[in-house]
């Protein structure tokens, strides 16, 4: 037989409401408990981090202290180190600045080429030289060009013969000191550009100044031997003594008389014995 509940629904809703409310209270308590649990967990991790921090703090402080001591010692010894370094650099400068340059140039100088001056200045070395023949000048250039310590070789030379070459032409009959008495030949000026420039001299003016000083002090005018047109009257006036003159910068051959010094362009100094040859 079918049983029919005829009681109205609100009879049972009271109990349902109560159960639902209890459910939500429980849910609320669970939420609160969850957050509290999470906080406890986070606090635990934080405590671990703090503990680790505290464990490392003495080391950190010690490191700071040691570094501060090191810095203080370095600061205290900076002056004495500066003085020491200056003396060291000065001693090194006196013994290793010019000697390698000079000896290197000497080692790359061909036999037969004589120097009358050598002047290191910064990145260049200027030399006044003499060679008996043009072939020696050429070979000197070829040899010096292979010098690994030299990046560029520049030469100033005058007195090259025009063509046809006069009979008995033997370069400049007179020149500067290195040439043997009465010998012909060629005076020329060489400018070598060094790969490694000559450093400035060390200087010391007080605390913390032991570095290199102002470069140079090694300057003087070029010697200008090669370009002075001492070549027996073969050069035109316009080309004589021009600084920076290089090989081959002779006047056009057609403008020069074969006799050297008798052509219409020639009015410059003539070496004795060259005119009318």
């Amino acid at each position: 037989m079918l049983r029919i509940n005829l009681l109205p629904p609100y009879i049972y809703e009271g109990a349902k409401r109560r159960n639902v409310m209890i459910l939500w209270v429980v849910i609320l308590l669970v939420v609160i408990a969850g957050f509290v649990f999470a906080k406890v967990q986070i606090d635990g991790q934080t405590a671990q981090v703090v503990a680790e921090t505290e464990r490392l703090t003495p080391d950190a402080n010690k490191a700071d202290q040691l570094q501060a001591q090191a810095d203080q010692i370095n600061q205290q010894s900076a002056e004495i180190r500066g003085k020491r370094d200056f003396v060291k650099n000065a001693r090194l400068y006196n013994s290793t600045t010019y000697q390698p340059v000079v000896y290197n140039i000497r080692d790359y100088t061909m036999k037969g080429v004589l120097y009358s001056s050598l002047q290191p200045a910064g990145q260049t070395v200027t030399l006044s030289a003499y060679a008996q023949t043009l072939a020696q000048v050429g070979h000197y250039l070829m040899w010096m060009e292979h010098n690994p310590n030299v990046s560029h070789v520049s030469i100033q030379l005058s007195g090259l013969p025009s063509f046809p070459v006069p009979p008995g032409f033997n370069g400049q009959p007179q020149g500067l000191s290195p040439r043997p008495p009465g010998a012909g030949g060629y005076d020329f000026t060489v400018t070598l550009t060094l790969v490694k420039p000559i450093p400035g001299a060390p200087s010391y003016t007080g605390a913390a100044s032991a570095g290199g000083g102002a470069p140079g002090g090694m300057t003087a005018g070029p010697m200008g031997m090669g370009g002075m047109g001492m070549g027996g009257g073969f050069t035109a006036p316009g080309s004589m003594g021009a600084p920076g003159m290089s090989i081959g910068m002779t006047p056009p051959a057609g403008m020069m008389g074969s006799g050297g010094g008798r052509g219409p362009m020639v009015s410059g100094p003539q070496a004795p014995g060259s005119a009318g040859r």
Partner: protein
Amino acid sequence: MMSKLTILHIHIIGLVVALLVGAGLYYTIITKAIDQKKKAETDLAAVQARADKLPTATRALEQANRDKALAEAEWSIYEKQYMPVIGYANDTLTTWLRVFLPNKGRSWPERFIRTVRSHMERERKVNGIIWENPGTLVLPSYGPDPNTIDVGQQGEGFGPVLHYSYQMAVRAPNLDKLMQHIKSWSTLAQAGVPVVEGLQISGNSPNLTATYNVTFTIIVRDKIPAPVPRISGSGGGTGGGMMGRGMPGMGGGFSAPMPGMMPGMMPGMMGAPGGMPGPASRPSTSMGMTAPPGMGPSGPRSGGGSLSIGGASAQRAD
């Protein structure tokens, strides 16, 4: 009231309350805890970074101690070798009298010149170096005012660093000897640290000529003398033999003819008489102090003039 709430209402209310409570708790206790944790982690990272430097710092300290000890040891050697004891007294007046007036070879300029000359003489014997311009080695007059002495270059006072610079001209038998000579300057003792620069070589062996500039740097070991404020001096010319470096040229018009030379000074080093303003002349302490000829000082240092102490003025006659 409660009887009017349906179950749906209770669900909605419960949900809203749960959300509000959850959000409230999150934004209060949880975020605070997270912030604290983050801060702690940041602190830990910083401390960790510092702590990680402990080995480096330990090595740095050891290195600093080693460097200092090494520098002190090396400097001790260098100082003994290169830096002279100039002989400063406690005050400038005593120092002036003892060290900067001719003193039988014991004054500083006389000792300095003697030291350099001895070196060049040794170079002559060892490397065959001929010193062609010994007259370049001159020191300027220091004037009559002990408080305004420039022991080295102008403006250097009594130190702590002094410089002397000379253009040298030498003749060497060959290139090797010349290079040895350049190097030999480092062996010079008790005259400061010499530095050679500006080398120029000309000529040929065995008459190889070289010019260069040698600069002596002296880091003064002596205690800098205290000035004597009650003393001032004024005077004229530099006396003889002191013009070589172009430093003097103290005006003043003191024109005692050829006053005495410093012992050991080379003849021919005489400079222009006082009153010739040099390009790098030291400033005159006084102008117009013309002493009668023949009454000038015999020493090169004072150049005559007056020395006043405490307002009283005493004319120097020696």
